């Protein structure tokens, strides 16, 4: 086993990785910004190194500072978590060049998937279904309008280097496309330093379902089931569950097989996620993108399989065998993750502040991955995720029952949270029926 790992991240995911490191006897090194000095992950790591001021560009995204911390602490490996530097192929290469183990896929695979246009083209060649769309960057509004004529409205406008839903918008007609194109371009440039835009056919009543894969050293790619991530606000996930209540076993098999082909096409190593859009009307699916890292919502897969995905990442990175027999994995039961955000429950506006009270629910099937505790500041510099409330049950009804009790028992004081939204979600007939799509939240909060 590895002897030490530096976790180049913050909050709940840093804490999550440190927990597995501790269980496996791996020395953990945290890095933190000035704003995060009092957070639990800093205390729980074996060693913690300050790497700069609060703005991400001066700390968590500062590659030299992170590598310097690794050197000073003698860390053997680096786990990037998600976000920040996790999908930066250049950084992964720099980690390897510094003689460290990169706990993630090979930089070449990261590069192939980072650009959405390239990824789409690659997937099409590999026989993974992609929706109608542009095969190269759309140069200007005129080109966008011409492309949309061919694809057919409505279309989705996306930043090719994008992620996290930022800069994405749907256009139902040429006027909306012309307006949305310029906005998308300026955001793409600002957030992702690349103005490249692609257009894709937009499916209005769609589910967002993704497949967890694990690429092994021998080239084998395993699919560890799906996660339904259709509960979204502003194209960002709020709740995820597995199994998906919206697909049958036949469709599931086809999706898992396509995800394996996607992983094989880029010689994928380690944990990754292949995202699909499922058209619920026709029972068909299309490739959306691949996330070349551990996913925020990975705990729901862990709950139904009993596998610690971070442990598999460690094992694969050091060239060891995974801890389970792939043939023996049969997911059982149902799992749900609710993202507890520092935002109000009505309009979902950010609510930074200081946490004055914090009490996590407990009980059968309840797992809380949190990044904060009472007294901690929640600053405007980072994403609003406070905690992931994960619930497991023998079936979906039991899981939802347990989730209702857990949401009611979760106490966060001092700032607004979306706990009230989650309580409403768990009572909504549409969510309870399982027959919902990515517009569910806009119907709950018109």
């Amino acid at each position: 086993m590895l002897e030490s790992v530096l976790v180049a991240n913050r909050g709940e995911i840093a804490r999550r990785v440190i927990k597995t490191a501790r269980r496996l006897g791996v020395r953990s090194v945290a890095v933190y910004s000035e704003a995060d000095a009092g957070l639990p992950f800093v205390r729980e790591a074996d060693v913690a190194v300050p790497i700069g001021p609060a703005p991400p560009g001066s700390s968590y995204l500062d590659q030299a500072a992170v590598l310097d911390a690794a050197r000073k602490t003698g860390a053997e490996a680096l786990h990037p978590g998600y976000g920040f530097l996790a999908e930066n192929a250049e950084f992964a290469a720099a980690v390897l060049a510094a003689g460290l183990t990169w706990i993630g896929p090979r930089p070449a695979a990261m590069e192939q998937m980072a650009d959405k246009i390239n990824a789409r083209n690659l997937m099409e060649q590999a026989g993974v279904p992609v929706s109608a769309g542009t095969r190269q960057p759309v140069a200007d509004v005129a080109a966008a309008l011409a492309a949309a004529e061919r694809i057919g409205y409505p279309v989705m406008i996306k930043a090719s280097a994008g992620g996290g839903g930022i800069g994405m918008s749907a256009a139902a007609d040429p006027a909306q496309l012309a307006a949305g194109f310029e906005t998308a371009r300026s955001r793409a440039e600002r957030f992702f330093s690349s103005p490249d835009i692609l257009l894709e056919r937009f499916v209005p009543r769609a589910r967002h379902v993704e497949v967890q894969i694990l690429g092994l050293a021998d080239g084998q790619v395993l699919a560890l089931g799906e996660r339904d991530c259709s509960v979204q606000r502003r194209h960002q996930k709020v709740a995820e569950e597995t199994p998906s209540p919206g697909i049958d076993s036949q469709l599931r098999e086809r999706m898992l097989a396509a995800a394996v082909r996607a992983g094989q096409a880029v010689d994928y190593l380690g944990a990754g996620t292949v995202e699909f859009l499922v058209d619920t009307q026709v029972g068909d699916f299309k490739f959306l993108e691949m996330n070349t890292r551990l996913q925020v919502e990975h705990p729901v897969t862990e709950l139904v399989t009993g596998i610690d995905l971070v442990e598999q990442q460690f094992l694969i990175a050091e060239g060891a065998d995974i801890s389970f027999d792939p043939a023996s994995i049969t997911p059982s039961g149902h799992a749900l993750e609710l993202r507890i955000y520092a935002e109000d429950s009505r309009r979902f506006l950010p609510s930074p502040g200081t946490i004055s009270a914090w009490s996590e629910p407990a009980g059968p099937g309840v797992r809380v991955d949190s990044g904060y505790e009472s007294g901690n500041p929640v600053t405007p510099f980072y994403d609003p995720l406070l905690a992931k409330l994960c619930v497991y049950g023998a079936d979906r009804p039991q899981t939802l029952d347990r989730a209702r009790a857990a949401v009611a028992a979760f106490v966060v004081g001092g700032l607004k949270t979306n706990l009230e939204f989650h309580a409403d979600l768990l009572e909504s007939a549409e969510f309870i029926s399982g027959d919902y799509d990515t517009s569910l939240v806009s119907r709950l909060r018109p």
Partner: protein
Amino acid sequence: MTEVRAEMVANVWKVVAAEGEEVADGDTLVILESMKMEIPVLAEDSGKVTRLAVAEGDVVQEGDLIAVIE
């Protein structure tokens, strides 16, 4: 006179309106950024922007003055 104030702690990403400019109710005055989200601050009245109290890169606290419309 209408005072437009910040609803939350945020960074000022973009100043869209200019002092002296005529704006209509609902026009975007500035765009704030907090927790990786853009939050447009809109004019709550029609009139002339007599004061713009923030500049790009500023940090505003909840309740801080952003603009005055008369």
